[in-house]
């Protein structure tokens, strides 16, 4: 009975949204489509950051509140390397590698000593994120940094119905899709991916069957952190990097994984799309109150499905 009622509400909500969408298309088709595309490209960025966050949580049960710092530090290091080498692609690689290395150091040097101790881990990560933010402010100052991507991805592309749209944002969307599929394939078909999935289900069992769990943890953490650093450079190119971005993306990742379901990569993708699209439609159609949309979605999910849309009860 409750399930029927829940779906009944979902249908009503869906109908209202569909009606609004039809009105949006009839009212101004171009604006509607551009906003949708903007929402999807923003979602792509959110997904890149949140996928690493959720991967780490799923396996290690570690809410890494320094995830935003990995994003910001990866972006800064990427920027420095990009300036030195003059290549944006090297900058992206550097952002990934540096953040992955940081993640490795964090896991091996810090979190291994407080496994299963949620509160201590949370406090430690908050502390680390504050230190990282201050160190970054000290080294790079409060300036605003922007990347110089190769010219073929900086212009605009004419799309059917939509018209001119930023090429870079389309590249961002494609990148996120590729990474998403890659991540899924990695988890589904490789040996390490298999171990990670096994670890998510039952860590004790995995360890008992002779797998070096600590190594699996370290690899997962490195990949998750690397994705944050990667997103730092890629996102910094679309927008910009400045102090404060760390908490911004940490909050975005938190909202995305809470909506999508902690520990689920597919959930991160779904959550990212919901939040990204809601944010952009808010900005375009209700600029003053748009910021509320994100949190309405979060509140609804928490009220009706506390484990997240694709999350599993633990």
């Amino acid at each position, binding site marked *: 009975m409750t399930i029927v009622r829940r779906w009944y509400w979902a249908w009503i909500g869906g109908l209202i949204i569909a009606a609004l969408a039809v009105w949006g298309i009839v009212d101004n088709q171009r604006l509607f489509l551009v906003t949708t595309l903007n929402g999807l490209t923003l979602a792509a960025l959110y997904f890149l950051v949140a996928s690493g966050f959720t991967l780490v949580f799923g396996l290690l049960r570690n809410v890494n509140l320094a995830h935003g710092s990995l994003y910001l530090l990866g972006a800064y290091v990427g920027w420095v390397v990009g300036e030195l080498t003059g290549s944006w692609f090297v900058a992206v690689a550097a952002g990934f590698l540096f953040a992955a290395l940081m993640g490795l150091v964090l896991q091996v040097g810090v979190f291994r000593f407080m496994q299963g101790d949620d509160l201590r881990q949370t406090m430690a990560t908050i502390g680390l994120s504050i230190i990282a933010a201050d160190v970054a402010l000290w080294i790079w*100052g409060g300036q605003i940094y922007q990347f110089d991507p190769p010219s073929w991805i900086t212009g605009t592309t004419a799309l059917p119905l939509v018209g001119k749209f930023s090429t870079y944002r389309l590249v961002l969307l494609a990148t996120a899709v590729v990474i998403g599929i890659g991540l899924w394939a990695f988890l589904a078909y490789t040996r390490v991916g298999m171990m990670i999935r096994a670890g998510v289900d039952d860590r004790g069992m995995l360890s008992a069957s002779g797998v070096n769990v600590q190594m699996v943890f370290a690899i997962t953490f490195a990949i998750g952190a690397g994705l944050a650093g990667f997103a730092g450079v890629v996102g910094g190119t679309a927008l910009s990097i400045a102090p*404060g971005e760390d908490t911004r993306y940490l909050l975005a990742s938190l909202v995305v994984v809470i909506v999508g379901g902690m520990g689920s990569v597919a959930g991160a993708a779904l959550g990212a799309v919901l939040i990204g699209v809601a944010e952009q439609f808010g900005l375009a159609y209700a*600029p003053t109150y748009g910021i509320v949309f994100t949190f309405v979605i979060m509140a609804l999910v928490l009220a009706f499905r506390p484990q997240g849309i694709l999350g599993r009860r633990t």
Partner: protein
Amino acid sequence: MTKRTAKLFGALTGAAIATVLAAAAQAQETVKIGLLATLEGPFAAGGQDGMRGAELAVKERGGTVAGKKIELVKASSDAKPDVAVNSTRKLVEQDKVQIMVGPLSGSEGIAVKEYSKSQPGVTFINGGSGAQATTLLNPSPNFFRFNTDGGQWMVGLGDYAYNTKKFKKMALVAEDYAFPYSQVQGFMAEFCKAGGKVTHKAWVPLGGKDYSSVIAKLPQDVDALLVVLGGSDAVNFLSQYEQAGGDKPMVGGSITVDQTVLNFKGKRRESLLGTAAAGPMADSIDTPEWKKFVADYKANFKDGFPSPSLFAFVYYINMKAALDALEAVKGDLSGNQEKYREALKALKLKTPVGEITLDENRQAIGPTFITEVAKGPDGVFFNKVVKTIPKVDQKLNLSKEEFEKMGLGSRDVPNCP
């Protein structure tokens, strides 16, 4: 030594050291000044430069005033009013500062002004915040502002945009809080009066980052955009506007094309050339006082901007006012700082842009400069002065009746679609 006696011994040593230190501090009297700016959030770059400006004013006096040592206690906020009040509270109640300089951003200023009413023993001097309401509505007797406000900063620009730039129809993009309201009012009061139309207003959240959908909604049939965004918001908007293929000329607010924005690391800033803006200062003012200020700034802060930003400037003048008045009363802060406040009110502050005085609400009356972005021979971007309005008061140089009829700036005031 047992563990316990060791602990006791340690505690005693600590106490002894503390006593000696306290005695040393008393030998040369200190005056404690709290300094609050945003080192996080969208105005982090501005906040950092604001700190430099305040430090410069202290350095000019060799770190002492009226024979007392100046002790700066710094704190940070992130442009949100509640954070600013918490940081101020910490400085006032925990660190026991006697004078408070800050905060940086508009809504923060209003919140700190309200808080100042509960602390009559401390004198509050503004840092960089420029919302009109701070000193115009329910002013606080111990809150002083030696910088002109966001509305005053835009006086003359509306006229310049309409008559010189020939923009008749404009669309507006501005952040949704007190300071841009003031800025937009300062601009639109004149622009609308001259006959201009502002057909579309987009108020966006502070620190919003992704403006692509706001840009998609901008009307195509306008002559120019009025962009009142600051710091990283401005950079994000400008680069995304270009990414989206936008090509309208722009008129900026006082912090839209500030040094923080002109110096962002990236190549896309070329598109800023020719952008008109207005503010309480400009990079290229041609007076010896201004040039000395810029030279001092450069000499003291190797890691600073090529020339001081607006925030460095306003923090500098506010801190300078705090110290000049302190000198005038020979450091006398007794009697609930009564004498000190009288000195502040009577101060004719010598600043790099000319003299600044206070009105009956303890709000500054000072000059405004209309500027355009130009490129120097060394490739450095700067704001070239095209016009100066020597004295601007808080009523935007309108008559009292005219100003009161219009009311305070908000999302819908003024309006001329």
